[in-house]
């Protein structure tokens, strides 16, 4: 789960990481007042979950409260498109109004779980202010890495110190830097983060260390033990069809740009179906995994999502039933045809547990499905159907 920058900074502050003075505004008038309180000269930052805000015009400076109001008015209520959002962009419902900080140096500090070593990895770099992938590509020698002891998840004081000393800081900056590393790590572990990043970690011209921008992502599987974090969820930042899919109880749905809607059981198989569609020149309209749960409503709900997507020209159902038995899937298909008008062709391949019973249910119902027997045939038929005028 992702959260907004202002929420991340408030958490960082709780863990002893210094952040610039700021306030959150949901109206231009609020922005004006916060700017006045901060002395007039501020940065106004659109609060969205996607990266690339700066380049997309989502971060602007203002030299007076009146200008802060004007800038906030232009951002609030707009949709911001960045390289991470897709063409439709995401809505800006809040801006962070923050004191301006003169940076002398921009550092990087980040924590992830490394799957190879199977333990948290803390990374620091002098080359901050750009994305870590870019640092890794351009100046890999400038990334300092330190792994946590995995039995206890303990990150020791000397490790934090080592990182701090590796950043070419002045002697009086070592202690605050060590505290920032330790604080970020404590937050990472105590709140079950999947990513905790301060970028840039600024060294100001008056020699202070501050988290100028921050990103915290959380492990969805651990949200049950952090109701405070779960409460920070902002569904506005997600694609409306995906939010609908979540409330309609579909295991996993991701909207894509193509025209072949897919309904598959299992995430790996769903990806393989998408790949195979692309391989023969088609375009998937979505990733949709109904999961391995044995419930016919999942199929009905999947059809509700796909039929409300105007770009879908054909639906491909590819099921390899294990726990999700084919008779149950077939019942769901029949029910979907009863409940809604399905105007696009539906190609169905149904294999696995209780396939014969499934066939009977479909035959009896008289619904018109285009049948396919093999994986290859299912893909090719769907691509042909979608390309028909």
């Amino acid at each position, binding site marked *: 789960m992702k959260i907004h920058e202002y929420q991340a900074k408030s958490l960082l502050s709780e863990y002893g990481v210094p952040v610039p003075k700021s306030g959150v505004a949901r109206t231009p008038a609020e922005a004006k007042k916060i700017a006045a309180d901060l002395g007039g000269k501020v940065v106004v930052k659109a609060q969205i979950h996607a990266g690339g805000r700066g380049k997309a015009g989502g971060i602007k400076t203002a030299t007076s409260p009146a200008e802060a109001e004007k800038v906030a008015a232009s951002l609030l209520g707009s949709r911001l498109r960045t390289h*991470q959002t897709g063409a439709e962009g995401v809505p800006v419902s809040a801006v962070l109004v923050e004191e301006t900080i003169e940076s002398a140096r921009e550092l990087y500090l980040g924590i992830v779980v490394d799957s190879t070593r199977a333990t948290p990895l803390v990374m620091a770099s002098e080359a901050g202010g750009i994305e870590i992938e870019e640092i890794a590509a351009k100046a890999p020698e400038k990334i300092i890495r330190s792994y946590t002891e995995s039995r206890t998840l303990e990150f020791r004081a000397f490790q934090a110190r080592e990182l701090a000393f590796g950043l070419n800081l002045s002697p009086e900056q070592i202690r605050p830097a060590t505290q920032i590393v330790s604080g970020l790590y404590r937050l990472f572990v105590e709140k079950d983060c999947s990513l905790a990043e301060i970028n840039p970690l600024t060294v100001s011209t008056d020699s202070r260390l501050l988290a100028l921008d921050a990103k915290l992502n959380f492990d*969805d599987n651990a949200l049950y033990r952090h109701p405070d974090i779960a409460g920070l969820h902002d569904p506005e930042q997600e694609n409306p069809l995906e939010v609908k899919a979540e409330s309609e109880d579909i295991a996993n749905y991701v909207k894509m740009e193509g025209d072949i809607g897919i309904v598959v059981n299992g995430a790996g198989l769903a990806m393989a179906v998408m790949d195979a569609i692309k391989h023969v020149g088609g375009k998937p309209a979505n990733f949709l995994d109904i999961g*391995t749960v044995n419930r016919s409503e999942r199929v009905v709900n999947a059809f509700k999502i796909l039929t409300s997507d105007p770009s879908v020209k054909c639906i491909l159902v590819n099921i390899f039933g294990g726990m999700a038995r084919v008779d149950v899937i077939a019942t769901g298909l029949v029910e979907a045809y009863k409940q809604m008008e399905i105007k696009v062709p539906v190609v169905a391949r149904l294999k696995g547990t209780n396939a014969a019973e499934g066939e009977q249910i479909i035959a009896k119902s008289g619904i018109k499905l285009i049948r396919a027997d093999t994986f290859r045939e299912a893909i090719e038929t769907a691509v042909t159907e979608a390309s028909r005028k």
Partner: protein
Amino acid sequence: MSILIDENTRLLIQGITGGEGSFYTRGCIDYGTNVVAGVTPGKGGTKWEDKVPVFNTVSRAVKETKANASLIFVPAPFAADAVFEAAEAGLSPIILITEFIPTFDMVKVRSYVKEKNIHLVGPNCPGVISPGKCKAGIMIAEAFSRGNVGVISRSGTLTYEVSAMLTEQGIGQSTCIGIGGDPILGTTMSEALELFGQDPETEAVVLIGEIGGTFEQEAAESIRQGMTKPVVAFIAGSSAPPGRRMGHAGAIVMGAAGKAEEKKKALAAVGVLIAETPPEVPDLLRKVL
């Protein structure tokens, strides 16, 4: 031979009396797996469906039934504890089916079992099957047949799909291991490859990978270091958009290494044959068998 489980496996099932536990225990027994015990705290002394004795603790179950492997269906918040209990009792392999386990729980669990030299498979996986000998998992038995190809997969249904394609074409399997779709795995792809490398019955290996992480690159490295058996790979997710989690917790492209194309390149560089779609897997295997 085969890897991890065979006709000598005496399986214990943790969470045997739950809905999923019961359903899949039936499937394992129907396949011929020797299920010797179940564990559900508080239900010790009873019998599951009049067949399998249920115990309160794993240690007691092991003492009384000589169980030597565990299959876990315990809900996510309690799953890590269940693995610790099985590991403490010396069971190996421990096969963890449970999905949605917090990552940090798995970090601690993996480090513990590694230290004890115990094989843990999963989490978020379909389990392990050595066709004709033993099934410890939730897979559809009909998709599999006995033979000499090892299958390693991060995805459940894709394992069934590919194995069924092999079975239809008369290519049987020594063992199929679903390593799971999470970022932290008990057995990684390269660790599973090493097991197949040492198994005399296995003549070739199919790798079914997907986007996210660097498990496939590690597998490529271990192949380079001394895997002499031919390997065929399919990597799912070439068409997945970056930065989006595709169902599995581990299936998200973060940076270049997680991309399907990078993984294919790394594997092809060490002589692995790459299938662009699942139906190409049996075609490629035929060339090397």
